[in-house]
């Protein structure tokens, strides 16, 4: 079925490629990505005389961007993936509870998100920075906390609507407990929205992480992420666009691939939509 959607197929290929880079990249690269060469400072892309690694140009310290993008893959995907998953799980669970149970607990949860939504994230980051040691896990936690409300609120809203549908009632009458009602009947209906938000949040989290790095909370040199690379390129936007362009492109590519794959998955798991993928092959 995957091959019937060339876009989704391409997206999977891209994701697999990035996954491979994340696993193998840092070992394969050695110090290519970290050794500077001030003579190649801001070297433009597509000039091959400096060698293959300089294909995408060099950064302000003359380090090859291609190598750095590869080097950054692992940390980037690790942080963004963990933060997105964490916020999704926490947000969805709380949203399910708030939407399904309603009542006092639901209200309490909802107001808690109001608090999180209005709490300045910079302040949160600083508190973490002061109270704990800077560690990647802290970055993930800060990022996750700030993203929880979006999942929570969407999930809650959808659950409230789905909860009142007849087939849920019908399962309830058969004796289904909350776990089954949620897991079998409600979650699958909310899932598409969650996935859509997740894939979109991926990009956001990657960029937000950069601002924490600048506070001293995130990754520190020589370790690097795409977000940090984009942010470092900021000062050179008018003179050397490629510094932030390539890592930005990587972020966009991953986001887009995730989204295409998730669109595809959503169609596959939705029996009403599945034909869209099936019909194609025969034409």
């Amino acid at each position, binding site marked *: 079925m995957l091959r019937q959607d060339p876009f989704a197929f391409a997206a999977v290929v891209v994701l697999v490629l990035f996954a491979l880079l994340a696993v193998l990249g840092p070992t394969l690269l050695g110090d290519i990505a970290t050794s500077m060469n001030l003579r190649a400072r801001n070297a433009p892309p597509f000039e091959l005389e400096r060698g293959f690694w300089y294909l995408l140009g060099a950064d302000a310290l003359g380090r090859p961007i291609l190598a750095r993008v590869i080097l950054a893959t692992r940390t980037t995907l690790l942080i963004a993936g963990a933060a997105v998953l964490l916020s999704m799980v926490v947000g969805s669970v709380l949203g399910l509870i708030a939407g399904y149970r309603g009542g006092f607990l639901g209200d309490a949860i909802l107001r808690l998100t109001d608090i999180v939504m209005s709490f300045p994230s910079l302040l949160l980051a600083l508190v973490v920075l002061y109270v704990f040691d800077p560690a990647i896990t802290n970055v993930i936690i800060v990022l996750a906390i700030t993203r929880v409300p979006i999942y929570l609120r969407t999930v809650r809203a959808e659950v409230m609507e789905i909860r009142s549908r007849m*087939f849920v*009632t*019908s399962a309830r009458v*058969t004796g289904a407990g909350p776990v089954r009602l949620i897991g079998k009947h409600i979650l699958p209906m909310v899932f598409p929205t969650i996935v859509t938000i997740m894939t979109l949040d991926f990009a956001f989290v990657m960029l937000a992480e950069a601002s924490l790095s600048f506070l001293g909370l995130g990754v520190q040199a020589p370790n690097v992420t795409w977000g940090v690379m984009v942010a470092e390129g900021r000062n050179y936007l008018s003179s050397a666009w490629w510094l932030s362009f390539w890592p930005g492109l990587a972020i966009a590519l991953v986001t887009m691939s995730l989204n295409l794959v998730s669109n595809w998955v959503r169609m596959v798991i939705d*029996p009403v939509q599945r*034909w869209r993928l099936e019909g194609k092959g025969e034409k």
Partner: protein
Amino acid sequence: MNDTLLKVSDLSVEFRNGSTVNKAVSGVSWDIRRGETLAILGESGSGKSVSASAIMGLIDSPPGRITSGRAEFDGMDLLHLDDAERRRINGPRIAMIFQDPLAHLNPVYPIGWQVAESMRLHGVSPEEARRHTLELLERVGIRNAKARLKDYPHQFSGGQRQRIMIAMAIALKPDLLIADEPTTALDVTVQAQILDLLTELRRETGMAVLLITHDLGVVAQTADRVVVMKDGQVVERGDVREVFGAPAHPYTRQLLDAVPGKSRFRQPEAAGERLLEGRGVAKFYPISAGWFGRPVETLKALDGVDFDLHKGETLGIVGESGSGKSTLARTVLGLTRPTSGEIRWRGRNVAQMSAAELFEMRRNLQVVFQDPTASLNPRMSVAEIIAEPWAIHKGFLPRAQWKDRTVELLENVGLRAEHAERHPHQFSGGQRQRIAIARALALQPEVILCDEAVSALDVSVQAQVIDLLRKLQTQYALSYIFIAHDLPLVRDFADRILVMKQGKVVEEGTAQEIFERPREPYTMELIAASPDAVPRSESRWRSAQ
């Protein structure tokens, strides 16, 4: 023939589902003349709704595909219209009443708006549309129509929704009205009212009606000609009286034989253990004036209902649409809390049960809801849907047997093993209802609550299902609460009957008492309004030929 309004020839529709192709309609031809009523009778799942959808241009394509045929209407081929032409036809020239009224009404718009829209779309002014909407709703028998214009679909009973759909369809006085089971959800008095209305419109405007139904009584009383379908094909056609009088095809004969209302009354045996009882059950809905207004009025959906259900008996509940039958069912199931009164299961008040007791009750009290489409999870396959009760009540049936048992249940309700892997949206209305029945049977409960459980089935399948229910009843001493408006059916199947009107029980008795010696005028009215499956030329609903 000059007065042929629509001529369908060699229509074939198929659905693709992965690698399998499902021929829903194959090579069907018929025609309908101006002003006449053509009935399409047929087995549930025989392609009646699909052929109607094809004419309306509503087949989702893909997965559906019209593989052959023409539908000539006014010199046009309805199967090959462009969007603009289609819009000019749909609504003012050909209108449709859908089979499943809840799903087909938009949940977020007030019903008044939805009815008016069908006029506004075709150039009627807002005030005119508003005025006419009110008139239409009154005409289809929505009580207190003016106040309810701003209500939403979920606030209406099944029959009321059906009537709203009808109001919407006849708003523009179309040349052809395609009515897909228009009266299935209606009680006989309202059914009579609706049929009167359609007749009247037909006289006024010369509207032709394509009536898709399995209610032989309705066909007998209203149709001029009839087309009988089975397995996607037309098996018989002709004048109603001829077909009903001398059916040629075995299927038609089978249908006519299966017409209920002819068997002997059931004689209630000595009352067994009392399983369920209701005492003074009442449910009031506030009708508020606006978002912030105080409730101005209360709608008494149930108003002090008492009932008992004993082991092994069938309690029939009849009554006009909106009389509170479904509300009573929901209350019994513990889905809505009664405003006052109580429901007891084996002497325990349902409202005060512990979770474990409730779970035990639910194991033994299953339900088939009125609205089959909505009650099936669209993402689950039929196999999953039917197996769900076993997954919930672990230990009832070992997993290894699920598959066989599912197939068995499907066959019991007249479906086939291959249907297990399909999803609800791939079925006809009647088929979905049977899936719901199969699910209710899965646990072999003590009580099954059937809210119009067989109303969407053709009489032969209906008879098959009823037979099954009866068999189970004798085997396991099952009890049923059987909500229906099809009086002959209730007459055949119920031991005792409650007659409801406006939230109150107006009469109660054994089937025989109710049907042979009705005391209340309302009951008499109901019985009288029930159409007879023998076509008579003097039927007030038939068009004057």
